[in-house]
């Protein structure tokens, strides 16, 4: 049932997809032209270096970070339905961005990521303030879902009363890698520092799965672990949402699939889920770009098409 060596398979799969993402798009570039294309002055230099390469790398990083964030949240909430979307972080970031776009349409788009980040962190703080430090996992998840719905209706309200700016916001809100390049890649780089922090939590996350009482008896401070894990997860999610918009279901589906693949031990699960997340977003973006070129669908739409039925299946299976 389980693969004994999942990492070589996953890494190979990811590399193949990276090459595929470089090759295919509105214009196909044959495999043997790819390497040549990175030399300045070659025919495909602009397409590859300025367009497809940063976008592909961004898909890898965002996919990996969203998946890792989801694994951390599922790790401490002990609920297979939990994910950063469920906690309301993604939608909080989305609402902040739409408010910004609606009321400051003239200001620089460069500020959008920062605003989304503040919104995501605020959403997390509100959740924390409502639930308190020692609240139960279920209470946290339910409150998060309620808040997410509230933020989503806030977005709808703004779009109805200020329909002029709707296009811009809509594009961003579906979660897309379109038009993202080196600039966005550089913005996300500092947040990679959260990855080693997440790995450092792996051992404790195993123990919290045995219940708070057992974890505490094994020397873990359950509340502190929850706080640190959720803070790291919020940082990862908010930084991704800031760059790509909320790419739905990735944080839910990736850790879940990975658990089926490699089991629940976090020392294996965390790195493996990053690879699975990267693979999922690479596939989503590849399909979104090649399904009907030159028209591009948002990658977030593709993840939602796969993710929503998966979520429903999970929901029915849990009952």
């Amino acid at each position: 049932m389980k693969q004994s060596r999942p990492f070589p398979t996953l890494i190979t799969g990811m590399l193949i997809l990276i090459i595929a993402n470089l090759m295919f798009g509105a214009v196909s570039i044959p495999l043997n032209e790819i390497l040549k294309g990175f030399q300045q002055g070659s025919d495909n230099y602009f397409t590859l270096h300025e367009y497809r390469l940063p976008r592909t790398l961004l898909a890898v990083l965002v996919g990996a970070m969203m998946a890792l964030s989801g694994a951390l949240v599922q790790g401490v909430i002990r609920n297979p339905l939990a994910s950063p979307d469920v906690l309301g972080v993604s939608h909080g970031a989305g609402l902040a961005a739409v408010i910004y776009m609606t009321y400051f349409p003239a200001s620089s788009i460069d500020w959008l990521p920062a605003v989304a980040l503040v919104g995501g962190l605020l959403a997390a703080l509100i959740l924390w303030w409502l639930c308190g430090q020692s609240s139960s996992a279920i209470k946290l998840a339910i409150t998060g879902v309620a808040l997410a719905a509230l933020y989503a209706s806030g977005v709808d309200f703004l779009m109805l009363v200020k329909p002029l700016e709707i296009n811009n916001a809509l594009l961003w809100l579906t979660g897309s890698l379109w038009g993202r390049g080196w600039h966005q890649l550089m913005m996300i780089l500092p947040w990679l520092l959260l990855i080693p922090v997440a790995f450092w939590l792996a051992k404790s996350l195993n123990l919290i799965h045995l219940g708070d009482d057992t974890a505490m008896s094994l020397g873990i401070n359950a509340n502190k672990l929850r706080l640190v894990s959720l803070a790291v997860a919020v940082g990862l999610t908010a930084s991704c949402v800031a760059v790509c918009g909320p790419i739905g279901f990735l944080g839910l589906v990736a850790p879940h699939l990975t658990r089926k693949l490699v089991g629940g031990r976090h020392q294996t699960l965390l790195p493996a889920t990053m690879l699975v997340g990267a693979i999922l977003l690479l596939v989503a973006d590849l399909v979104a770009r090649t399904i009907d070129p030159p028209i591009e669908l948002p990658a977030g739409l593709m993840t939602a098409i796969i993710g929503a039925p998966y979520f429903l299946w999970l929901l029915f299976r849990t009952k």
Partner: protein
Amino acid sequence: MSLSTHNLSVGYHNNIVVDQVNLTIPEGKIIALLGPNGCGKSTLLKAMARILPPMAGQVQWQGQNLHKIPSKQLARKLALLPQTQPIPEGIKVVDLVSYGRSPYTGFWGRINAEDKRIIKRVMQETKITELANQLVSELSGGQRQRVWLAMTLAQDTPYLLLDEPTTYMDLNHQVELMHLLRQFNKQGKTIITVLHDINQAARYCDHLILMKHGEIIRQGSPETVLTKALLKSVFSLNAQIHQDPIAKTPMCVVE
């Protein structure tokens, strides 16, 4: 004596469940906490395991306030088997048992030869060696209980605290578990267990602690604790005390 409570009050949300209890755990014995539902026996156990913080007073380990001891260090002294356990997804039996070694491993949780030796031994003792590579979620209730017991044993602590370990088990598994506890006790472990079954406690435990309304009513050997009058006042039960024909321990028979 290693574990003791001093004017200890514990509860939930200002409801005092354990009320100013002074208790010294006799070392090297099997101790049973007994009493009707809601008497505070599980709460007292959790306070001694540092799961619940005291509202007043303190629990001490070798004269030191339990809450002042670094948690990893304390995890090498006291292990707790809670009453109910979640069923972790995608975890193999051998992995779950190895989690018991956490207080001894580094940040990545890597286990060394010594850890492996202990894991192998406790799996043999609890008879789960052949389950090693099965998923915990696919086991029966009785098997799962043994796996969790093995995990707490892997913690390799001088004290083992159990919260109603036999409540949801078939009778044969209950007997098996109590025999195991006796065996670990002979190896030098002090065992504190909350039990529902008075006769089980009398037969397998050395020291009984009888509680009611958050207070200790009486403690001592089964002979001194199981009396007609005490059973009447604590459990509102009309019972006779006879001698168990096999173990020669006191046995209560309800009238």
